[in-house]
């Protein structure tokens, strides 16, 4: 028995499991309060108080919401494909949590460092399409089917620019490992009399903007929330879902937002790098940047109107894609020029 636990593979598996479970519960807590802050921020942007009755300042609202969802009656449309209908919510949550395994949170909290970490994230986000498409198809409902199909087309269109915008960062860092990418962003960059942190947002501003826009589109959030545009598609792909199954799509959306924001922080905002804090507390920088970014997500959602579908597709294919390609070539030329100066 003891020999079994001393096996290095088992050790890695065990500590991996412990860290993943910790991440899962921390994420659940964060998501619960993100829903609360989303409603609070929406309230303040629209000059109303937001939830304020359950507990002091409405702080217990998430628990009331979860309990309500947990106890809601659930129904399955009569002509739905039952098996796929149950599988879709699983697929909505799984990719987000799985890709969190490669996100370096702090110098002392890295679940795993693989040298194709960025590809793991891209692979998982490319699997995210299935949850929406299957939910839409299996419900056997017009709105759900339209929503699922639209969202699938939207996600694959923006995935291209998302993937291409990361190439510039890889060119600068010379690695696909997310830990290496964070290390490549430590130190400072001389900028006239100032010293900027060596974050890739300063050396790859175009890629950063493209990545951020695609992040909004990949998480199906406003102004790209056409898959669930209430005014035309009722609830979109999750129209027929209720109770905990609906909650899983909701959880998946917020987890996706957390994951893609974490990747943005890792790729462009220096990850855990930041001044003043000792190494053991540098993960606070990571969380600080993460929450600032998530605030941006919410701010955008409650500020911008929804795009029209043709505008959405045209923007992805005719604006973001060529700019991302040009950025790749320009960055390549710049890296070559700097290296041979």
């Amino acid at each position, binding site marked *: 028995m003891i020999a079994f636990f001393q096996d290095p593979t088992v050790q890695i598996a065990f500590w991996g499991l412990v860290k993943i479970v910790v991440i899962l519960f921390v994420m659940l807590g964060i998501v619960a309060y993100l829903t609360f802050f989303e409603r609070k921020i929406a309230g303040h942007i629209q000059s109303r108080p937001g939830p304020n009755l359950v507990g002091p300042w409405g702080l217990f609202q998430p628990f009331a919401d979860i309990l309500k969802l947990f106890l809601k009656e659930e129904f399955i*449309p009569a002509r739905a494909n039952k098996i796929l209908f149950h599988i879709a919510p699983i697929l909505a949550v799984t990719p987000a949590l*799985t890709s969190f395994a490669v996100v370096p949170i702090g110098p002392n909290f890295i679940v795993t460092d693989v040298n194709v970490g960025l590809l793991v994230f891209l692979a998982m986000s490319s699997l995210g399409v299935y949850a929406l498409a299957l939910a839409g198809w299996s419900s056997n409902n017009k709105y*759900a089917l339209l929503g699922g199909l639209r969202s699938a087309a939207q996600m694959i269109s923006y995935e291209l620019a998302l993937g291409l915008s990361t190439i510039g960062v890889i060119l600068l860092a010379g690695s696909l490992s997310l830990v290496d990418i964070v290390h490549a962003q430590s130190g400072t960059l001389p900028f006239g009399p100032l010293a900027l942190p060596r974050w890739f947002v300063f050396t790859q501003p175009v890629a950063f903007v493209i990545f951020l826009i695609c992040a909004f589109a990949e998480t199906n959030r406003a102004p790209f929330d056409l898959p669930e545009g209430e005014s035309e598609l009722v609830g979109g792909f999750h129209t027929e879902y209720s109770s*905990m199954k609906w909650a899983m799509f909701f959880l998946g959306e917020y987890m996706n937002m957390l994951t893609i924001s974490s990747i943005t922080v890792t790729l462009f905002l220096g990850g855990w790098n930041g001044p003043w804090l000792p190494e053991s507390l540098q993960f606070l920088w990571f969380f600080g940047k993460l929450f600032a970014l998530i605030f941006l997500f919410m701010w955008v959602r409650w500020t911008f109107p929804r795009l029209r579908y043709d505008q959405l597709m045209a923007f992805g294919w005719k604006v973001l894609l060529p700019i991302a390609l040009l950025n790749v070539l320009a960055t390549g030329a710049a890296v070559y020029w700097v290296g041979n100066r």
Partner: protein
Amino acid sequence: MTAYLPILIALLVAVGFVVVVMVASSLVVPMRRNAIKNSPYECGIEPVGGARQRFPVKFYLVAVLFILFDIEAVFLYPWAVSFRQLGLVGLIEMVLFIVILFVGYLYLLKKRALEWE
């Protein structure tokens, strides 16, 4: 390859968590089903026709183009990580590769294949 083990574990934990939550919820929630409750939602009126209709060929075209550009993007990753060793040759190769595909992209624009009328 043990570095990939935690990713597999994360996958299993995620699936396990969702299954447990969904099963636990379905054990406690009321389920009083009837034909009207289970009919597809259509804004309150009776459902008209089947849901599974045929869609514009556009969606199919977008998926095909996505595959092609995705393969292009995949070629960029090994290029980007080994770019420093490849030097000028690597840059020229990639410019050539992207320019050839850009011709195809211009053809797409010309043929209005990316328009959603």
